[in-house]
């Protein structure tokens, strides 16, 4: 274990170290037992990511100036990163446990896909920040703290974790989450202070409860001391200014009135053909009885020999005898024509039941 600090200057005599050279230098120093790095970068990417101290119990720490993209991308627990100033896109991309402090603004997609660790930003973050954040229940909830605001499309497809957007120094911005944020969000929580506009309809914006306030009070204290702005606590800890955003449960998303309800409640009363006919909107089954029949039987007694074949073969038991007459009960008869078929004397004749709207 070597305690002294490794100081790397990446631009010497106008010669710039490439990203590969820098990252391999860091790795070799880590292999030698070093854990404390101060890097004067020149836009090199992926600094602080996917590395761990030789002794896993030790903290690997990076102090970085002027980094390139993906500071702390794929970083593990036990890594602490401080960026002195702003950082470009993808800070903490796929962060799996590092603490990353950016003392300035972040580019786009900060904390993108972060599933562990804590990211503290002393400024603004760009578009799609916090998108696809996740929470694996076997690990600690990831946290993403932003002092000012996010760009548009933030927190898209968020599946877990906690994000806090403090809305500080946002002047007359009409939305501290930009436009169309939280599209496809299915999990996690966002706390936000300040106006929100044109947010996705798959989330709900609700008021804080006591446990939220407790979390924010403790968290703000830590966040503000990490970015050396504890004096803002009073201003930010006015919790009536805050809202909480969580995904809308799927059963609420689905709720639309049915077309049947629409017809009954909104549509022209009695239907647009109501001046021609009062449609009862009854639906005839197949087969149907009475008015719903396509064919209807009619009986005449001229030739009847009272053989009872019709009565005994009617599948609906619709035929009965009254005095000397055979009668078909309209409420039972489906108009199948079996009475006509079995009658040896053609007393039953089937007729079309075609009728029109009158």
């Amino acid at each position, binding site marked *: 274990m070597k305690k002294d600090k490794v100081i790397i200057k990446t631009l010497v005599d106008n010669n710039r170290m490439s990203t590969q050279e820098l990252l391999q230098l860091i790795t070799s120093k880590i292999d030698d037992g070093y854990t404390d790095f101060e890097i004067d970068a020149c836009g090199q990417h992926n600094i602080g990511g996917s590395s761990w101290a030789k002794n896993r119990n030790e903290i690997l720490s990076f102090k970085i100036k002027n980094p390139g993209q993906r500071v702390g991308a794929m970083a593990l627990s036990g890594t602490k990163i401080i960026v002195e100033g702003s950082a470009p896109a993808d800070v903490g991309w796929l962060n799996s446990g590092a603490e990353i402090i950016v003392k300035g603004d972040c580019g786009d997609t900060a904390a993108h896909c972060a599933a562990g660790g804590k990211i503290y930003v002393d400024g603004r973050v760009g578009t799609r920040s916090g998108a696809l954040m996740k929470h694996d229940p076997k690990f600690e909830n990831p946290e993403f703290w932003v002092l000012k605001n996010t760009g548009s499309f933030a927190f898209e497809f968020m599946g877990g974790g906690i994000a806090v957007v403090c809305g500080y120094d946002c002047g007359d911005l009409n939305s501290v989450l930009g436009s169309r944020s939280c599209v496809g969000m299915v999990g996690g929580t966002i706390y936000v202070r300040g106006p929100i506009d044109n947010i996705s309809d798959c989330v709900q914006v609700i008021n804080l409860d006591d446990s939220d306030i407790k979390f924010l009070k403790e968290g703000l204290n830590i966040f503000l001391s990490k970015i050396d702005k504890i004096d803002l606590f009073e201003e930010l800890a006015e919790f009536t200014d805050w809202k909480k955003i969580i995904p809308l449960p799927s059963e609420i998303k689905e709720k639309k009135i049915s077309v049947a309800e*629409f017809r009954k409640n909104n549509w022209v009363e009695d239907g647009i053909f109501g001046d021609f006919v009062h449609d009862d909107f009854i639906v005839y089954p*197949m087969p149907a009885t009475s008015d719903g029949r396509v064919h209807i039987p009619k009986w005449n007694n001229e030739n009847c020999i009272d053989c009872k074949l019709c009565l005994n073969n009617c*599948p609906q038991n619709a035929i009965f005898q009254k005095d000397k007459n055979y009668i078909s009960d309209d409420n039972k008869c489906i108009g199948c*024509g*079996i009475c006509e*078929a079995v009658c040896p004397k053609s007393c039953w004749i*089937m007729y079309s039941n075609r009728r029109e709207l009158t």
Partner: protein
Amino acid sequence: METVKINQLHMDDLPWIIEYDESKCIQCGKCSAVCSFGAIKPEIEKRKNPSSNLAKPSYSKVLVIKQQISFQHHCRGCGMCSRVCPNGAIKAVRNINDRYSVRYRAAKADSLKKGGRSNLNTEGRTLDKIKIGRISQMTDPSLDAARHEFELRTPFGRILSADKLGFQLNNDNIELSKQLPPNRWIYPIIMGDMSIGAISWRMWEAMAIATAYLNEVMGLPVRMCTGEGGIPVRLLKSRYLKYMILQIASGHFGWNRIIQSMPEMTEDPAGILIKIGQGAKPGDGGLLMASKVARYVQEIRGVPRADLLSPPTHQGLYSIEESVQKMFLSMNAAFNFRAPVAIKVAASVTSVSVYNNLLRDPYNIVGGFFLDGLAGGTGAAHEISLDHTGHPITSKLRDCYLAAVHQGRQGEIPLFAGGGLGQTGSFAADAFKLICLGANGVFTGRLLLEIAGCVGNDVGKCNACNTGLCPAGIASQDLCLTKRLDIDVAAQNIVNYFIATHMELKKLMGPIGNSTLPVGRSDALITVDKNISERLGIQYAC
């Protein structure tokens, strides 16, 4: 002895044969009860019993279901009998030896008529040979169909090029020097174009309800074309009129009530569609068989019960110029130049000339060009027209679009294409491909009937829309049949289909990276057919 003559109609002459399994039949009578064509009936069949006495044969009587052999009562293959049979004892089977069309003409000295679509799809579907082959990947990001914000609306109405807008400077303000032609931004799928009479009042109202619902609950600005069979006064006076495109065709049916209602209208209609021709039977007028001219249809159209044959052309229009002057001007004037007026023609070799003429019209009063291809449906047509006249939609739409492009005037008169869309099951894909080829939108009618419950198909199943005996209650005016149609289910199904189509359109827009309608983006299309590639000017792939 009972005998037959060779020219007597026989089961073997008919397009469908009833296959009946007596051993499974429980004589419940449901099949014959529901058959709206009277094509099956219970009958007594005589059977011989085994007997030892040659001199005294013994017979028994068996109750069976029998197919009826007649021109009027022949089976159309709708299959209602097998739907209601509890035992699967009966079904209609296609007769491969069918000689019906010969026998009918020979016996009746009459042309064959039917509904539905052409059953003679000899050329196959061009749209099925086209794929969306330009997918944004590393070149530019594709969009997430489920979550990205898409703008699907399309203009309905005349668009003027920038130099014709007539802006002028008044002090320091830019002002319009003249009234612009009316224009509405609508959903790119227009439904309907089917008349009251051709379809039942329940089916027509179901479409109107679905339209209102899609607008007011789903936020999709879908418009419905009324077809030319009149419009219920209650609808004309309601606020839902704003979703309706009123149609005027060569029969001019129903316009008396439309005009009478004008003082009481609270909304303008969505537009007016002047129907010159129809893809299913170009050069032929509307045909409504007397069996469907119910009393309310007589009233709303102002005619007695009779076969209603609309003239094949608009009488009094003898040239395109005259059409513009009389029809377009009058229809624009009817709603004080506030409602866009469009024209619908059957796709034809001459369609481009018509389109070019309209593009050049100096009064800018044509607000849409609807092209209807030969695979369109109809309530009734002579089979000869249905099967042998017409022009496929795809190349003609492309021709019209490119004709406008060559003048730098694409989009000035929005193009809408229709005719057989969704025929092979993928309406959104058909719509999308036509839009990529230059359509601003599409229209559909027949598909809506299938969504509502039509049991027919394009290979001869049912197709009896002309008879008024529609077993699904869609193309009938009969109480006992129309009331089989559940208006709420029909409307809900249409709504659901539109929601699904909306998702699917976005599912195609996303991958090609368009968040607005890809009108004319033929670079997104490929085809494995060299001829199609050459004709449409899209990339050949293999």
